[in-house]
């Protein structure tokens, strides 16, 4: 208990710092290429070619976009609340980045005799932490929309916040059913159980569906992108923003999409579990480090699948009307999630007898 200042485990600090920097930069790069992928997928579905000028098959397009956003003039409206106007995109970005801290990206790796876990923080409350950070993300939208001092922005911010709150509820309820199965909130334990057994989606298909729909709503993606409904609200809560502040808002959305895909694969699709392969046996035959690499790759492939699904839905399904959105959230998803929870609890109790 009585440790003095500066006497911590320095290796531990360095290990975590490297991990944090690595994961943050990976999620930034992935978010960058999501914007490229989105256009390519859209183009593919609409029988066009998509970005093709910057670099081979348009691969440098995200860099060009970033450069454009950085070079643009910063405009802060005179009547806006300056401090909060700047705080808005900061909060959105911060909340988007912080979620990745509790996700297990792979098994342990062996670094010169030191077992390094590919997870920044394995805390007791894992998945609740994600919920807390996600609920902070609402403030980015609300503060930005209000500080712009524009009626359209305010309307869009209110829409976004009420949508996020409404869909957090069924999301939490569908998660309770899952937690009854796993008996732990630690993400590493949830993945560990799926490594040896069946993926959770087999036990919880309805719960997964509810979670998926709520994730769409939380990320403000089509069919739930009402905060940005351009035909009603001009451009949405970030209408007054320009330059990189706008870029941060758009970027935060793509990071959220990436993180929610990772969380869905972690909770329901086995996390870093390589399908049809016994991970422990694989680690013995080809070594721990290579296995961890393969596991991380598997997680990214699963995540990529979900990201593609997000885009597929965006270019397939039209937007909901606002009352339809609220009806779906409160009158269909919440009762469905409650029923799922009660059925799961009953089955678990029945099987234990």
């Amino acid at each position, binding site marked *: *208990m*009585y*440790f*003095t*200042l500066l006497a*911590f485990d320095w290796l531990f600090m360095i290990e975590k710092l490297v991990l944090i920097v690595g994961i943050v930069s990976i999620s930034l790069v992935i978010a960058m290429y999501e914007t490229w992928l989105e256009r390519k997928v859209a183009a593919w579905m609409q029988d066009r070619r998509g970005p093709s000028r910057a670099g081979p098959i348009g691969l440098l397009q995200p860099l060009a976009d970033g450069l454009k956003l950085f070079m643009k003039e910063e405009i802060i409206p005179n009547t806006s*609340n300056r401090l*909060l106007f700047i705080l808005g995109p900061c909060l959105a970005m911060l909340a988007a980045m912080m979620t990745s801290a509790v996700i297990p990206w792979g098994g342990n790796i062996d670094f010169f005799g030191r077992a390094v876990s590919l997870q920044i923080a394995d*805390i*007791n*409350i894992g998945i*609740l*932490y994600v*919920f*807390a950070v996600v*609920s*902070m993300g*609402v*403030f980015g939208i*609300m*503060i930005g929309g*209000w500080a712009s001092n524009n009626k359209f922005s*305010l309307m869009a*911010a*209110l829409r976004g*916040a*009420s949508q996020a*709150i409404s869909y*957090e509820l069924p999301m939490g309820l569908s998660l309770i059913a899952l937690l009854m199965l796993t008996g732990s*909130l630690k993400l590493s334990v949830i993945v560990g159980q799926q490594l040896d057994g069946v993926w959770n989606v087999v036990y919880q298909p309805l719960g997964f569906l509810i979670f998926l729909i709520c994730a769409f709503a939380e990320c403000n993606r089509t069919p739930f992108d009402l905060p940005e409904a351009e035909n009603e609200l001009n451009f949405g809560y970030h209408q007054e923003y320009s330059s990189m502040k706008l870029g941060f808002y758009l970027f935060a959305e793509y990071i959220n999409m990436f993180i929610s895909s990772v969380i869905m694969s972690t909770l329901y699709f086995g996390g870093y579990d390589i399908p049809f392969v016994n991970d422990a046996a694989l680690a013995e035959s080809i070594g721990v480090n290579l296995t961890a690499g393969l596991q991380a790759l598997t997680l990214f492939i699963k995540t990529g699948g979900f990201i593609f699904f997000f885009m597929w839905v965006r270019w397939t399904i039209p937007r909901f009307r606002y009352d339809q959105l609220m009806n779906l959230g409160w009158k269909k998803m919440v009762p469905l999630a409650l029923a799922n929870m009660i059925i799961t609890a009953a089955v678990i109790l029945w099987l234990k007898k």
Partner: protein
Amino acid sequence: MSISEILFYFLSVMALGSALMVIISRNPVHSVLWLIVTFFAISGHYIMMNAQFLGIVNLIVYAGAIMVLFLFVIMLMNLNAETEPKKNKWLRMAGIVAGGCLLLVLVAALKDAEVRTSAVQLVDGDIGLIKQLGSVLFTDYVVPFEISSVLFLSAMVGAVVIGKKGD
């Protein structure tokens, strides 16, 4: 000073300072944001005592849900300095007297409170983790727990009734 001591002072200053700012700020939206900072500081205290569940639920429920509703209401009310009504001088005096009385009561109550030297278990206690909390809630405190759930249900029914009145 150890790390936990530094953290304790940092969080305490943050909690008290932001709580003061809630009262001092003229803009109500700023007040709400400072209140959120206060909740963060309090959650930090919980986490220092290893009551992780309490800390994170404090954030989810208070900072994440209730404060959003506060913001909703305040943002729609258009509280500018011009529209704020002038307060009566006597009303102010009454406020000062009432606040002073509250301070007096609090000081009197806290004066005789027993000050323990080691009141909390830092960092390594497991009382605040979910397993312990759940088993205590559903064994020792099951009656208050169920009664409070009935209270919440009645509040929910009341909210629905009020919401339905307009139709």
